[in-house]
């Protein structure tokens, strides 16, 4: 240790040690299990924690500085209609769909609760439409809080992008807004609110928009297609933990759920035949959790991502999918029996300072003895090259080697956090993982709110931060943006960066060039990494770039940019 650092470090440790004493009595007198569900000041309930994890001193009775919010507070859920599973809506060019945003009754893990739904469904309707169609969607807001719909990844007309205060006024309760959604790209997209995503999206407001290609061989052969919407929700034995009313809780790491869901179900199951090739369309709608999806040893190949196919298909041991990303992956189930599709991670126990393996089963697949049609199974062995994708990307290779046009770096600023949190965080800054797979500090995370934490995207050239950044481009510009996820901050974390209204390529991460490109709208920047994006400015308007961790977005991590016609 350098002599200059010795004194403050000693002071920190000593102060923490002194502060520990009173809390230990509280801890031993209040077993964590007993505290679970206990109503606290302001209607809060203690955040669920591993009972083996001790509480930091002074935090036993602490609650977030914002008020607690639950939808339909005091309302009898039985008065609401039960939510229905998502229904497929086939739409053609010019067709109209009415979407109602309303409260619904959901039952999760045996708990009946008030949540939100698009047309009373979870997830919202799965809209299927052909490439180049224009869809008309009339949205009516029937929940108490304003909302909008953002058509994530769609390069649509700017005024329908769903950003309140930028492209439209938020839709107040009882009001409507009509979106015209032109879909120029094939792929799996999704829609969600752009108002307090940490609450509204977490409560069930999301759905997929599947844009189909006119090319019947756009994807390779598969026996069937399955849409998997991956999500989690934070609950205790009374239902969902309240959200922050004026600002989000969990502003440091985002709100990790402790109940995993596929398509809103906690016990999702599939039955397939031996040798069956299943094409999974994956969308991560969780507030902050990055999933590492494994397929129980079944062979998997990655085919496509946010906005189209990879240059070539590739075998993968798992699929790493950050919030808001989409992946298309083909999986062949060869062995009869039960196969778990799982989130397989090496979680971190900060208290013990260790990684530990953790597996959450998301879906159980029963593989029957009956054999699936052989030709499709055999075709799975071929990794297809997509010349059309490569040719399209070739037009952009002239810009790959250029110096960045803009450079962003990340930061976080905190104020008025509890002393225990400040001291603990400052003492525990020797290592941050590239990706936070789990909430290893649930109490500290819960107590950090958007009023105390500001997440920052900073323009390195000007020093401007978040909404003070003013980037201007013209249609046709091809722009290289370098993003450095600075590890030298109070609490660095991975950030899934989303660019509205345009598409981009991830050219390199830490100087290692990608050898298999795909068009994206969201890409995760691991801690410490430097990521080069090449953005095609093809769509005029006022757009946003932001972190898609819902709590980070609410805590400021966003800015606008203009693309002139």
């Amino acid at each position, binding site marked *: 240790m350098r002599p200059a650092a010795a004194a403050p470090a000693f002071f920190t440790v000593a102060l923490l*040690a002194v502060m*520990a004493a009173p809390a230990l009595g509280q801890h031993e007198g209040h077993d964590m299990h007993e505290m679970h569900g206990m109503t606290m000041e302001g209607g809060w309930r203690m955040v669920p924690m591993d009972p083996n994890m001790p509480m930091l001193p002074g935090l036993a009775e602490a609650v977030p500085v914002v008020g607690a919010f639950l939808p339909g507070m005091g309302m009898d859920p039985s008065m609401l209609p039960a939510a229905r599973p998502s229904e497929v809506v086939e739409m053609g060019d010019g067709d109209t769909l009415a979407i109602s945003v309303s409260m619904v009754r959901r039952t999760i893990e045996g708990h009946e609760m008030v949540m939100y739904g698009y047309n009373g469904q979870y997830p919202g309707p799965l809209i299927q439409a052909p490439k180049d169609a224009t869809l008309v969607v009339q949205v009516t807001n029937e929940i108490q809080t304003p909302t909008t719909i953002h058509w994530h990844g769609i390069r649509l007309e700017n005024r329908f992008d769903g950003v309140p205060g930028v492209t439209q006024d938020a839709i107040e309760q009882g009001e409507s807004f009509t979106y015209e959604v032109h879909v120029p790209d094939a792929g799996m997209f999704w829609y969600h609110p752009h108002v307090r995503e940490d609450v509204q999206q977490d409560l069930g407001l999301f759905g997929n928009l599947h844009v189909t290609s006119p090319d019947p061989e756009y994807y390779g052969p598969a026996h069937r297609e399955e849409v998997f919407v991956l999500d989690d929700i934070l609950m205790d034995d009374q239902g969902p933990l309240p959200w922050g009313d004026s600002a989000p809780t969990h502003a440091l790491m985002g709100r990790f759920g402790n109940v995993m869901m596929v398509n809103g179900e906690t016990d999702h199951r599939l039955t397939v035949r031996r040798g069956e090739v299943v094409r999974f369309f994956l969308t991560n709608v969780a507030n902050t959790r990055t999933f590492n999806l494994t397929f129980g040893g079944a062979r998997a190949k990655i085919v496509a991502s946010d906005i189209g196919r990879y240059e070539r298909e590739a075998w993968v041991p798992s699929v790493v999918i950050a919030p808001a990303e989409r992946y298309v992956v083909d999986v062949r189930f060869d062995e009869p029996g039960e196969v778990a599709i799982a989130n397989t991670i*090496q979680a971190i126990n900060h208290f013990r300072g260790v990684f530990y393996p953790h597996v959450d089963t998301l879906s159980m697949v029963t593989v029957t003895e009956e054999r699936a049609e052989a030709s499709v199974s055999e075709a799975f062995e071929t990794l297809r090259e997509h010349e059309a994708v490569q040719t399209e990307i070739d037009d952009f290779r002239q810009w790959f080697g250029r110096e960045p046009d803009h450079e962003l770096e990340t930061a976080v600023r905190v104020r008025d956090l509890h002393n225990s949190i400040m001291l603990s965080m400052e003492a525990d800054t020797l290592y941050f993982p590239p990706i936070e797979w789990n909430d290893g500090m649930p109490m500290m995370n819960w107590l950090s709110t958007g009023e105390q934490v500001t997440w920052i995207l900073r323009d390195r050239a000007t020093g401007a931060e978040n909404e003070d950044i003013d980037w201007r481009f013209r249609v046709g510009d091809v722009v290289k943006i370098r993003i450095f996820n600075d590890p030298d901050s109070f609490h660095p974390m991975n950030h899934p960066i989303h660019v509205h209204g345009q598409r981009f390529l991830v050219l390199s991460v830490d100087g290692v060039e990608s050898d298999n490109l795909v068009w994206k709208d969201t890409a995760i920047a691991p801690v410490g990494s430097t990521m080069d994006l090449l953005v095609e400015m093809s769509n005029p308007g006022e757009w946003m770039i932001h972190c898609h961790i819902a709590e980070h977005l609410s805590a400021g991590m966003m800015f606008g940019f203009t693309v002139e016609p």
Partner: protein
Amino acid sequence: MTSRVFLILALAVAPIPLPAAGLAATEPVHASTAAICTVTSGPEYYAFPLAATDNIPGTGFARGRAEIAVPAQSPFPIALAADGSYVYDVQVAIDNMRAPRSGTLVAWVTTPDLDRVERIGSLGETLRASGAVSWNKFIVVVTLESGDDPEAATWSGPIVFRGMSRSGAMHTMVGHGALQQENCTSYGYGG
């Protein structure tokens, strides 16, 4: 400084003592004649130094460094093994030192418990080696081997450099700091 230079020159012309394993030692290179290891790929944050053990002479001015990067063939900005562990390309570099006259410098990765070892490769004349690792915490070890056996399960020569991955800095808070009075046994520590 003058005495250090003299010492280096003296070492360069003097008979070089052999390490315990009976291997020829390495020759030092003056600091001004070789570049210090620089990051060529991978995030600076996760790179880590390799410290000399002084088990063999000629390493007093040497600098070692391990850099880790996501493999280029990963379709994601990170790469993971089936159990969720990170998969990295590892580059090992030693500077300010010449390759040994006899024997071979070989880089390895091992777990903190030393219960698993994998060979990265021989450092060769350039004192560079690259390989892969799929553990979240690991130690990079450079040893001086009598031969260059790609099939070797572990090292047999003396350790010349070693360094712990950045994740090794993550340590338990049990029994100290804010939690010094916690009951360690309830968390599986001590007795």
